């Protein structure tokens, strides 16, 4: 059953032009941070000045995976963990398009971890947005690869024995050209990062620490959405350009946020063109050729 239209009398919300308003209110719980990130993403897409016909949003399964269903752009909701490989095919088939992958930490880095690693390694021109809510929200709050050591989830009722990943360090180690992390309350900086990530050529990654009061906060003594949001923000320290290996998420200490990586690497498609031109030298000389082209491009960009 489709709900009847809501409050037609009021003026449109400024984001309504990119929302599937006939599907709003969305399914996210009261106080969920995904909505804030989604709002920020819509602002970023508008600010980045792209032709909106050329933007595609691809997501996987889970709470954040529902983002694709609410944005009024070409969007695809894939199977669990497979947003990145789907986006890979889409981007390579239509290099002129801008592909944004938006999904959760469990989808992108547990079941989809292998794809994440390899897309970053190839430096595919994708923007990957990871909403990290420290658990699997959609299924009721189970252990995620981000769940802090000792935190309670339904599958770690006495506390998690697992060590979580540092997603930003992983992305940087695999070759991502843009890596940033913010909390859902760093809205202006997050939006700036999203614009930069969308405009960046290559594999860019933005992680957002977002409150999940319903599933995560409730089991870990912070039930109120505002308290959870404030806690993430209050404990965060901004350390731009910090080695992401040192950008730890430590709830007893600091949650390090900032823009950690912004560098240039040739993308998969650049390299594909280079090696398949056939006049290129053998593989030892090819590296030299690539650096030369990279330099020429950097020069042209300035």
């Amino acid at each position: 059953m489709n709900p009847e239209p809501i409050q037609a009398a009021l003026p449109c919300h400024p984001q309504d032009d990119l929302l599937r308003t006939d599907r709003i209110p969305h399914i996210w719980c009261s106080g969920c941070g995904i909505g804030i990130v989604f709002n920020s993403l819509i602002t970023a897409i508008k600010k980045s000045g792209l032709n909106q016909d050329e933007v595609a949003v691809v997501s996987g399964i889970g709470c954040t995976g529902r983002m694709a269903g609410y944005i009024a752009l070409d969007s695809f909701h894939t199977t669990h963990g497979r947003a990145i490989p789907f986006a890979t095919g889409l981007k390579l088939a239509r290099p002129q398009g801008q592909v944004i992958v938006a999904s959760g930490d469990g989808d992108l880095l547990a079941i989809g971890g292998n794809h994440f690693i390899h897309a970053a390694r190839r430096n595919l021109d994708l923007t990957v947005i990871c909403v990290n809510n420290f658990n699997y929200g959609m299924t009721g709050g189970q252990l995620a690869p981000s769940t802090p050591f000792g935190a309670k989830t339904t599958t770690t009722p006495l506390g998690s024995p697992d060590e979580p990943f540092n997603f930003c360090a992983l992305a940087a180690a695999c070759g991502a050209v843009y890596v940033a992390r913010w909390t859902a309350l760093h809205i202006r900086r997050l939006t700036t990062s999203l614009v930069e990530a969308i405009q960046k050529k290559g594999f860019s990654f933005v992680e957002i620490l977002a409150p999940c009061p319903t599933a995560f906060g409730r089991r870990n003594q912070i039930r109120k959405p505002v308290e959870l949001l404030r806690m993430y923000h209050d404990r965060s320290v901004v350390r731009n350009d910090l080695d992401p290996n040192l950008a730890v998420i430590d709830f007893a200490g600091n949650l390090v946020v900032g823009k950690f990586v912004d560098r240039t690497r040739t993308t998969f498609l650049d390299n594909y063109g280079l090696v398949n031109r056939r006049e290129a030298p053998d593989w030892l000389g090819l590296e030299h050729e690539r650096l030369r082209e990279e330099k020429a491009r950097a020069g042209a960009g300035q």
Partner: protein
Amino acid sequence: MKYWRKPLDLETTPLARGRVLVVKDRCKGCEFCVNYCARGVLGMSKHFNRKGYHYPEADPARICVNCRFCEAICPEFAIFSVEDPQT
């Protein structure tokens, strides 16, 4: 509003004025906007919306400066502000 240092152009630069609009049936009552409104304009209504949540409303006695932070922080696309034409 209290200033820790009085801006030199305080007298000459007019403050922006905004009007808050609430799409009340979209609200799920998280209170983010109320808590993070820099000018304390917002409070929760005593009334319920169709979904059974209290929703925010602007206190007419307080001055909205149209910073649009409520719009950015609202996860529900339920609140926004527009420039008040009266100023």
